[in-house]
């Protein structure tokens, strides 16, 4: 069965259009509050980010902290530099050779159907031709990653994640980032079945129970389950938030964190909406309907902090014990530990580019493992730091840096 790639003009000709999206689309800067005034705080944060990026080896611990703290990584230019470091990806590595034409991949048809319907994910003002070029690229990136990792299966919603990377870092870099992400944070979603996705969602209600037993009790009685949060988790909120900016800010956060962080954010969102939830009839339909729609005006920065609080207070391994979940069942989680170990010792881009020019391009140059891991910065990933660090974290989060 051969699916048409995309419905094009009758002659099927592709319009040559500039594909450098970044030249035409720059999201407005995030507004921020800070005691010193937003501008100077932002400047200070920018300086800190560049310092982390340019130190050799790259100060990943600081970068993570900056990605988590208020406003995230601030600009797309920074994201293009920092996201690869957060994932330990060397964007100067040449992409692997394709093992088959993309049209022959088993998930190709579904990918095309979904990408064709993804118009909402592109900036509203964008020209059709430009969008179509990007949609073609989106199909391309997705299927190339799938071909490169035969064990991965496409799911509806994966395209919502990949489009975010495509819009920010462009086609080539998004391949390497998504390739890595798919074998780590997103790994459990990409099994043949959704059993391990369910497993991750199984953390949601127990977290809510810990934080607010009354709300939990109501939700349990309504039999709402957790499917309302499915799209949140497996698209990293890309499918459900209207504001592209908030999505990027959350991606900064999630890239710096444990793979379960999107579930903690889901808990934070539900807790935030307690009053709304308790006001509807205690019935699956009404609670599902209310929760599945995320209002535009939620205080996202506060929710990020709240999610971090929840993570520190009720870390995954403890929740797992309590909810009788098998913590290590998730390969997103076990792979994350591995990624953790490899994050340090990355070279700054200036060095990588130079090395790439030289024979062999030994990107993973050995490094003296620095002890620069600031504990507070990694609160989100090393669960064991306890409540004492929480206070520090909270005050740190009030500021840009």
């Amino acid at each position: 069965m051969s699916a048409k790639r995309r419905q094009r003009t009758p002659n099927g000709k592709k319009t040559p259009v500039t594909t450098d999206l970044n030249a035409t689309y720059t999201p407005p800067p995030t507004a921020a509050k800070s005691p010193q005034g937003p501008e100077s705080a932002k400047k200070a944060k920018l300086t800190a980010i560049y310092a982390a990026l340019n130190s050799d080896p790259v100060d990943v611990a600081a970068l993570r902290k900056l990605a988590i703290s208020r406003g995230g990584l601030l600009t797309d230019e920074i994201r293009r530099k920092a996201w690869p470091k957060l994932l330990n990806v060397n964007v100067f590595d040449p992409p692997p050779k394709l093992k088959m034409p993309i049209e022959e991949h088993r998930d190709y048809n579904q990918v095309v159907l979904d990408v064709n319907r993804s118009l909402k994910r592109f900036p509203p003002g964008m020209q059709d031709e430009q969008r179509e070029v990007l949609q073609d690229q989106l199909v391309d990136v997705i299927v190339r990653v799938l071909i490169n990792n035969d064990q991965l299966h496409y799911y509806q919603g994966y395209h919502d994640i990949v489009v975010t990377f495509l819009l920010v870092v462009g086609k080539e870099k998004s391949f390497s980032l998504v390739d890595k992400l798919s074998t780590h944070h997103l790994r459990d979603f990409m099994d043949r079945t959704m059993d391990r996705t369910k497993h991750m969602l199984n953390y949601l209600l127990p977290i809510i129970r810990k934080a607010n037993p009354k709300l939990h009790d109501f939700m349990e009685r309504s039999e709402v389950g957790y499917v309302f949060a499915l799209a949140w988790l497996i698209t990293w909120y890309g499918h459900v938030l209207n504001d592209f900016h908030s999505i990027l800010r959350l991606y900064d956060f999630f890239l710096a964190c444990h793979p379960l962080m999107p579930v903690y954010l889901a808990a934070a969102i539900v807790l935030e909406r307690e009053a709304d939830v308790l006001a509807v009839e205690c019935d699956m339909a009404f609670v599902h309907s209310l929760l599945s729609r995320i209002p535009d005006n939620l205080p996202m920065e506060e929710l990020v902090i709240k999610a971090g609080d929840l993570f520190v207070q009720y870390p995954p391994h403890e929740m797992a014990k309590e909810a009788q979940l098998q913590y290590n069942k998730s390969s997103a989680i076990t792979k994350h530990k591995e990624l953790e170990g490899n994050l340090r010792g990355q070279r700054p881009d200036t060095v990588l580019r130079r090395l790439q020019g030289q024979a062999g391009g030994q990107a993973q140059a050995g490094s003296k493992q620095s002890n620069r891991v600031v504990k507070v910065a990694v609160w989100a990933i090393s669960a064991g730091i306890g409540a004492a660090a929480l206070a520090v974290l909270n005050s740190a989060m009030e500021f840009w840096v």
Partner: protein
Amino acid sequence: MEPGKEQANGRGATDPNDKNRRIFKIIVIGDSNVGKTCLTYRFCGGEFPEKTEATIGVDFREKNVTIEGETVKINPIIKWHLSLVCLPLQLQLWDTAGQERFRKSMVQHYYRNVHAVIFVYDVTKMSTFESLPTWIDECDRHSLSPDTPRVLVGNKCDMADRKVVTSGIAQKFSDANNMPFFETAAKLEEEGDKINNVFMTLAHKLRDHKSMMPPPFDEADSRDSRGKSIKLRPNKAELDGDDDQPSDSSCAC
């Protein structure tokens, strides 16, 4: 199946605060991209969504309607009698994701307590028609009673030149499976009534359905009850953010 005359009232909404409206839960299933989201969206009062997206998991939509029906009235002298009135109904639609991985694990929860099923296929794509037996099995596996009302919908009829599933073969299939059959085009403006018919046919089947029929007089809820299998819902709060709700709240009977 010929729709009854009161189906023209399908667009008429009931008073959302009517405490006595009954709730029917309907699940909409079928392969990915056949138009389930577009159909439910249109029925619930929206126009054809130009920017529909793949459904992830399950989406919920609802619409309040009225149908003509008999109801139990309390009469102080003869205790009770049947009379013809407008029955306020709320149709709750569960719009499910078509991709196999979702149906296998995420959608199960939503088969519980459903009153009716809508099967959708795409008339321009044979594989979506050929999947129908799998979808029917799926329902059976979720132990829906065999007499749960079902309808079959062939969508995208506007693309006549690309139609590959003929009306004849689909009709035969629906007869064999004992369900009414409709062909629709969610995309066409003028198809609104037809789309309404699909849902209103179900509403009527539900009204007439044996298991929906209570004993004529129910002590527990003596004002206007049709029995226990249907939940009466006091409407505490209107649902937040559901802009699909029709604003017209007059009874059209």
